């Protein structure tokens, strides 16, 4: 039972408590009925996904500037975990949309930008797999990660702005009653904890792969004496 398994167990425990809160403590929504309970994990995993992609962004930027392999490993870990959470968000979103809007998909700003998020980071993982392992893969993936992270708010803004150009139904904004808000915040905290454990686990895997499979030693800073001799 290594420390990653212990951490995983703790995170799962937390999620079970969150599940209890979602299904037992939170009141049923008057308007939408029980299906509204999808909201808690759907939105939490969206935020967790975005947090993971922030890790990818920071890891990528740090890697580009000082080549630290650890930053690159965090970026790799963040991307995989982020895509998993985005998948959860998308599927739950569609399953929630069906009973309310009678369609699995509407091109509203949130769903569209989540889909774009998923496509970009699927592209990120593919670039990392397809490029030459090592420096090239890390550098190209970092650039994709940075552009991906910036693109999502831009897409979200564009779709919302596009919506205002076409007179359409205004999506009702959901002010939450107290118990629901409490349940949501608790679920969010648990989901973020789970995401952190996931990233730690994936980071460990990337480290092991580097050491055992790619035999890549952490790049010691190649410092050469600098006598002042211009060519």
């Amino acid at each position, binding site marked *: 039972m290594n420390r990653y398994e212990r951490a995983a167990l703790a995170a799962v425990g937390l999620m079970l408590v969150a599940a209890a809160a979602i299904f037992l403590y939170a009141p049923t929504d008057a308007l939408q009925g029980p299906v509204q309970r999808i909201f808690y994990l759907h939105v939490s995993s969206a935020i967790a996904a975005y947090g993971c992609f922030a890790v990818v962004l920071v890891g990528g930027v740090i890697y580009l500037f000082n080549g630290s392999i650890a930053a690159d490993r965090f970026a790799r870990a963040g991307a995989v975990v982020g895509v998993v959470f985005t998948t959860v968000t998308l599927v739950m979103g569609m399953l929630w949309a069906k009973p309310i809007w009678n369609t699995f998909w509407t091109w509203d700003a949130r769903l569209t930008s989540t889909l774009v998020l998923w496509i970009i980071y699927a592209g990120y993982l593919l670039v990392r797999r397809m490029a*030459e392992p*090592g420096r090239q893969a890390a550098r190209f993936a970092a650039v994709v990660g940075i552009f991906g992270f910036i693109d999502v708010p831009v897409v979200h803004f564009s779709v919302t702005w596009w919506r205002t150009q076409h007179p359409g139904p205004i999506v009702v904004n959901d002010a939450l009653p107290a118990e629901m808000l409490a349940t949501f915040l608790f679920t969010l905290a648990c989901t973020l904890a789970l995401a952190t454990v996931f990233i730690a686990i994936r980071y460990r895997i990337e480290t092991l792969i580097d050491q055992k499979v*790619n*035999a*890549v030693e952490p790049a*010691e800073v*190649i410092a*050469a004496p*600098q006598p002042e001799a211009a*060519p």
Partner: protein
Amino acid sequence: MSVIVADGLTHHFGTEPALEGVDLVLDSAEHMAVLGDNGAGKTTLLRILATALHPTAGRLQIAGLDAFREKRRLRHYLGYVAHAPGLYPALTAAENLEFFCDLQDVSRSRVAEALDAVGLTRFAHRRADQLSRGMQQRLAIARAILHEPRLLILDEPDASLGPDAADLLARVMNDRAVVLATHDQALANRLCPRTLVLRHGRSHGTATRLRVVQ
């Protein structure tokens, strides 16, 4: 002052070790041949020396500068002829060189001189894809000397140069430090007083032999 000081140059492609701990010192205007059969790591070593490839480990100093941090400044200093000529097929020989003059920030008068140095003056206006393999190789060499580099890295330039290869290379290598990778032992003996033998990515000593005058 040494032109190249390299120690412990190591490179892995994934888990494939291509180069293991190669050391190398080259002084100005000194010619060194790199010998070894295919897969011995010649191209990897030359790409690292030409700052075209970042090694997994090791230190490299060219003209007293750290070769990885000062890549851009070193591009004035070195010329590199790789395996593939890297020319623009639809452009003529002269146009190819003019383009690289602009990138090298060198006056276009160098084009005629370089073409003459490699014996391509008569083909100046022929498209690169209409030149024979040997002529393309000469054009690639002409491009590498456009900016009068102090250091030349040549990766098997003799591959399709034909009979006058040795004379042409001697002319081009004159008064420059050169690292020349080749299979042709005789050419290496004739042009380079020093040779470095690579086997499976490891260097087996730097032999210094008196030039054998044919």
